[in-house]
């Protein structure tokens, strides 16, 4: 047999995979490893998709998605974030934000182009950029800075070959957020060095302390930003695979070619669900956001109390505690916590080298499950309090 694609063969499978396989074989696991909401998609959304099926909407939609849905997305972007897009030329409905990222990089990159990727980062970013011919240049967010991005760190990574920056705030896996002012400093770099920006805003709605600023609304950014967003997180619709891009026509036109040849269109039934989700967003989103915020408040405090130093994340639904003082690598920590106490977390190095020394623990699970997880983590952490225990016994 002739050999397979060298590029693909040489890609490493996602670091999450190994833990997934291990955790799946075990019972009585409290999982904090889940990167998705614990809510089921609201019933009216499921019902709308069901009704579309009943009425026989089983054909393709326009390549860019149902016009009605694009119009609704455009008005959502305006009402919610103050960003204005033409639904006929600047919007594409995709199969999840992941495919949106894929078409963005394919449309942007030539071989050898460098993309600055803010790390720790979602596992798909690097591979998608490389498959599109780009080179990943990681820029680490510093833990001492609450995992917010430093302008100087970004600028130091920019070269003549830098084509684009990829940002994701609120961040998966750190939950870090950036204010409009902080993002403006990064935006100035994009202007200064004439860069494209891909802004993954999938966690936009899940901002708990500061109002969310869409990168495209910053000075001079609309024309150089591809906003990637979707329904998975804010509307609890991960399995539906529905996302979208908002970008100037000059790049939307090119992304649409990739989308049209590679995907044709997002599933029509799913798009009807998305339409209902947007129309009823005031009914559901604030309630879910409030519930995540309460759990964040509880969980971060409890992790810190259990001896895992954790910064307060401003968004998403992840805690990113430091495990450095245990002397274990993040993989060792995650594996032992799973085997010894049956709590599943994701090792930080799955999200890039800068994630080493941390683990990602999702709090998108019931308060009762979180309390059980904390009881187990508490027990697990006892073994690392050697010095304290010795002092105690000497008394």
């Amino acid at each position: 047999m002739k050999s397979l694609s060298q590029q693909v063969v040489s890609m490493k499978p996602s670091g999450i995979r190994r833990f997934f396989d291990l955790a799946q074989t075990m019972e009585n696991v409290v999982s904090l490893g889940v990167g998705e909401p614990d809510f089921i998609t609201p019933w009216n959304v499921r019902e709308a998709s069901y009704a579309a099926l009943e009425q026989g909407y089983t054909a393709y939609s326009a390549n860019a998605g149902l016009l009605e849905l694009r119009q609704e997305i455009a008005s959502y972007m305006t009402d919610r974030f103050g960003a204005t897009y033409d639904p006929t030329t600047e919007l594409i409905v995709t199969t999840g934000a992941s495919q949106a990222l894929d078409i963005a990089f394919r449309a942007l990159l030539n071989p050898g182009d460098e993309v600055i990727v803010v790390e720790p980062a979602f596992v798909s970013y690097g591979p998608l950029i490389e498959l599109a011919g780009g080179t990943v240049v990681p820029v680490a967010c510093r833990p001492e800075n609450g995992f917010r991005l430093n302008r100087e760190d970004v600028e130091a990574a920019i070269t003549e070959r830098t084509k684009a920056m990829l940002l994701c705030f609120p961040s998966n896996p750190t939950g870090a957020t950036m204010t409009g002012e902080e993002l403006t400093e990064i935006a100035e770099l994009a202007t200064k060095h004439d860069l494209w920006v891909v802004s993954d805003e999938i966690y936009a709605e899940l901002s708990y302390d500061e109002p969310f600023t869409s990168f495209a609304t910053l000075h001079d950014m609309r024309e150089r930003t591809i906003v990637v967003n979707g329904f998975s997180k804010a509307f609890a619709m991960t399995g539906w695979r529905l996302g979208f891009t908002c970008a100037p026509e000059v790049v939307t036109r090119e992304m649409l070619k990739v989308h049209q040849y590679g995907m044709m269109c997002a599933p029509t039934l799913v798009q009807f669900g998305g339409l209902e989700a947007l129309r009823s967003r005031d009914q559901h989103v604030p309630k879910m956001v409030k519930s995540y915020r309460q759990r964040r408040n509880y969980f971060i405090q409890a992790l810190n109390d259990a001896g895992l130093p954790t910064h307060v994340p401003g968004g998403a639904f992840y805690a990113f505690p430091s495990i450095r003082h245990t002397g274990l690598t993040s993989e060792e920590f995650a594996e032992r916590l799973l085997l010894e106490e049956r709590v599943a977390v994701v090792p930080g190095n799955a999200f890039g080298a800068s994630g080493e020394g941390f683990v990602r623990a999702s709090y998108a699970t019931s308060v009762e499950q979180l309390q059980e997880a904390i009881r187990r983590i508490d027990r697990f952490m006892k073994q690392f309090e050697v010095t304290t225990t010795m002092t105690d016994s000497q008394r």
Partner: protein
Amino acid sequence: MYTSKELELLELLEEKGYLETKLLANLLATDEATVEAMLEKFKADGILLGFRAMVNWQKINRHDVTAFIDVKVTPKRGRGFDEVAERIYRFPEVTALYLMSGAYDLQVVIRAHSLQDVASFVSDKLSPLDSVVSTTTHFKLKTYKHDGILFTPQVEDKRLNITP
């Protein structure tokens, strides 16, 4: 006037039922003393009336009977429906009583041991009241959902243990 934190506490209690003060404090990003003060205030103001468990008696085959009785009454001058309502809700078997708009005035919910008990409640206690004009009794056959809680088997978590 109540603060947004106070309203958030009430919503949380309404949804979750009783929770320990420390957990409430953590969820609301405040301290235990503040939560205790808020709870005291709610009790004093008659806003927080108590905590009850939601029990699915259907599961253990206890054959209680629940009836919904639509009652038409003649309101009393000066006291409206309140006087007759008071006379009805004092019966311990009345578990709920609502003043309704529409075809009848009061909806009485009663829980009793048997159909016979319901029948005697209606004929001996409810109908003889001066203001009561007519009654229509409906029996509950099955509970699917009550106060937002499903009584049919819950959907378990369908998510995988670890996802990106």
